């Protein structure tokens, strides 16, 4: 991970991270593709199914993720200025928000599962074709997004440790920066999921 002369190639690392995000774009892109095709085929069913979604929780979650993005961005600026404690504190806040997001998501899922809506459930299979697909997409897309949030939280926890131990410091922020990029990306995915699942009623 270093250039020939042994010093750290921060720009190279950042480039690698961006490339990774490109692959993530296409990974989620495959799902958005399915979504758009099925939404075109079953516009009315999607419309009806989306009414089941809890718009309040969805909106709160969006706000939480947006704010967490702010926190991680600030933490990078902080470490750049050498404010180690402030930075790790902000990272902690980010993690807490990520966890809060997941908890809310959990309650949303449970609420649906309680009324019998989950893939392959008898209730779901009785619904219209488009609604089956809608909820399938809902579980898969928010599920994979949630998995990304979870991974993000774990990675940020490691970053906190590195920050505290000063292996991440003013002159070496590449890892934290890349984590930030990842977190923002996860945020962006949610920015699109939110209207697609909650607002199309």
């Amino acid at each position, binding site marked *: 991970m270093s250039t020939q002369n042994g010093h750290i190639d*921060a*720009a190279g690392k*950042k*480039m690698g991270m*961006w490339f990774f995000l*490109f692959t993530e*774009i*296409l990974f989620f*892109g495959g799902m*958005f*593709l399915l979504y*758009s*095709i099925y939404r*075109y*085929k079953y516009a009315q069913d999607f419309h009806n199914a989306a009414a089941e979604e809890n*718009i309040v929780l969805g*909106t709160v979650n*969006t*706000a939480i993720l*947006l*704010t967490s*993005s*702010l926190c991680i*961005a*600030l933490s990078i*600026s902080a470490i*750049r*200025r050498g404010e180690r404690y402030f930075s790790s504190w902000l990272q902690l806040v980010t993690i807490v928000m990520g966890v809060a997001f997941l908890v809310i998501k959990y309650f949303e899922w449970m609420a649906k599962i309680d009324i019998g809506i989950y893939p392959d459930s008898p209730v779901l299979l009785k619904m219209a074709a488009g609604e089956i697909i809608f909820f399938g997409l809902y579980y898969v897309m928010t599920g994979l997004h949630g998995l990304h949030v979870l991974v993000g939280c774990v990675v940020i926890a490691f970053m906190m440790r590195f920050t505290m131990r000063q292996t991440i410091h003013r002159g070496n*922020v590449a890892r934290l920066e890349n984590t*930030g*990029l990842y977190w*923002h*990306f996860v*945020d*962006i995915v949610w*920015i*699109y999921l*939110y*209207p697609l699942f*909650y*607002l*199309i*009623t």
Partner: protein
Amino acid sequence: MKDPSAETHIVATRTYAVVWLALLALLAATLAVARLQLMARYSVLGSLLIATAKAGLVLAFFMHLKYEGRFLKGLLLLTLCALTLFIGLTFVDVWYR
């Protein structure tokens, strides 16, 4: 090999705060559009446009794309083009089927 992306750029806290406020404002806007049926027929399009605006803000400021070289922006565009191409060509099938 010097390129602009190698330079570090500390974004001011104020800028971040403003961006964050803008994001929340857009969130409120998108909610309003959907709830109040402001543009009933185009509400999906509207929410997607707002989502894109939000994503743009996150990309530009939080992800520092604004301060990156043309190179990275070009590649991002390339990626998005690939995705558009995939979706577009699939639609050519579905539309005319």
